């Protein structure tokens, strides 16, 4: 062995590897401890954040069930691929990935639904929206989940920036009538945003599409509560 120096591993490499290994183990141990002690709290927080977001569009006065307990998956199928799909005209929602709808119950009767909807005709990138619709077909709330509109102009659709999005509360397909689902500039009923017309047009259109989807699928949504 002593002559075989070419294949013998120098002691320094062994020592170095062991040191590095010990550090890796210590790091893993520390991470494991922190992860274990925060995992429960993180999950709690995550659910609370989701609940808060849903509660903003559908206040608890309209439902008494846990909205997160039974989400309905909505697949991004279009009418050109009429596969197993329970919903009529799901292309109205323009979903690019599978997202969830939530059913609201009040004393075990259907009181509304929260639908995801996307707008691909905005100024910059896609807009992800959450639209809550009550059983009678009126909008209870709309929120923008994600957007990339110009800060200072198009980003007024975000509740953090302005109250514009609250203008949909209480609206329905009958109020205003369908041709009025436009910005004032286009002869409609909704405020435009100064310096940004394309963004509100896209959002108004998306909310209107969500309402149509709700109208077409009301009974499907209602029966899915079980």
């Amino acid at each position, binding site marked *: 062995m002593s002559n075989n120096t070419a294949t013998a591993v120098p002691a*320094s490499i062994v020592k170095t590897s062991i040191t590095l290994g010990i*550090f890796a183990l210590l790091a893993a141990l520390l991470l494991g401890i922190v992860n274990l002690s925060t995992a429960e*709290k993180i999950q709690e*927080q995550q659910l609370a*954040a989701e609940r808060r977001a849903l509660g903003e569009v559908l206040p608890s006065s309209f439902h008494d069930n846990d909205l997160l307990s039974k989400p309905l998956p909505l697949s991004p199928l279009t009418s050109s691929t009429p596969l197993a799909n329970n919903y009529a005209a799901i292309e109205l929602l323009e979903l690019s990935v599978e997202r969830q709808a939530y059913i609201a119950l009040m004393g075990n009767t259907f009181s509304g639904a929260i639908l995801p909807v996307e707008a691909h005709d905005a100024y910059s990138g896609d807009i992800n929206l959450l639209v809550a619709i009550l059983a009678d077909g009126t909008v209870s709330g709309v929120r923008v989940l994600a957007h990339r509109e110009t800060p200072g102009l198009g980003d007024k659709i975000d509740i953090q920036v302005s109250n514009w999005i609250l203008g949909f509360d209480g609206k329905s397909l009958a109020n205003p009538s369908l041709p009025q689902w436009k910005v004032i500039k286009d002869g409609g009923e909704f405020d435009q945003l100064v310096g940004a017309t394309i963004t509100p047009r896209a959002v108004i259109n998306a909310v209107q599409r969500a309402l149509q989807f709700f109208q077409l699928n009301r009974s499907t949504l209602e029966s899915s509560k079980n």
Partner: protein
Amino acid sequence: MTQSSQSVKEITLQGLWGNNAALVQLLGLCPLLAVSNSVVNALGLGLATILVLLGSNGMVSLCRHYLTPAIRLPVFVLIIATFTTCAELLLRAFAIELYQALGIFIPLIVTNCTILGRAESFASKHSLLPSLLDGLMTGLGFALVLFVLGLLRELLGTGLIFANMDRLLPFAGNWTLEVFSNYTPFLLAILPPGAFFFMGCLIALKNILDKHFALPEVESETPATGSQRVRVTG
């Protein structure tokens, strides 16, 4: 020893001002410029960076006798990544909205050169307490620049300051101050180019201040050179 020559005062001054990570070393600019669009984001990232710097400096200092040159850098990176992940988990557990707002920039603390720089140039050569102090002061210096940038950009970009502070401090929900009412936002301030612009202004301001305060010091503390210079020019 170098430890004794670097007094507490010196480490503090170097970290906060003289060798400020953001203004002088120009390190960690990517997260600095990206999240300084509001006070709450700036403070959140600043605190997370301080936490990671404290942890990594302390740990590196404790391990410095066991590290051979070959594994020095891998171990530094391992330590920094560990503390960054801890900071990320803690943020998710206690300030999830802030975590969502800061997004990718929390994991990116790993790549903040300030932290590796302090581990390499200070903590690996000094004992625990000076290293912790250096981490704290460097982090505070970085967080201070973040805070000032965030304040300026939020004020000029939205007309408000301290909006959404409850994301970081649950009791601070009503801290929002409307400085200008009916304010037309100065768009540049919240857009990325504005970050560079305001950062440049801050660096210039620091240089002006340094120049302004350095002159009387030279005259009072070293009268010999001062008088000599007067003689030469006179």
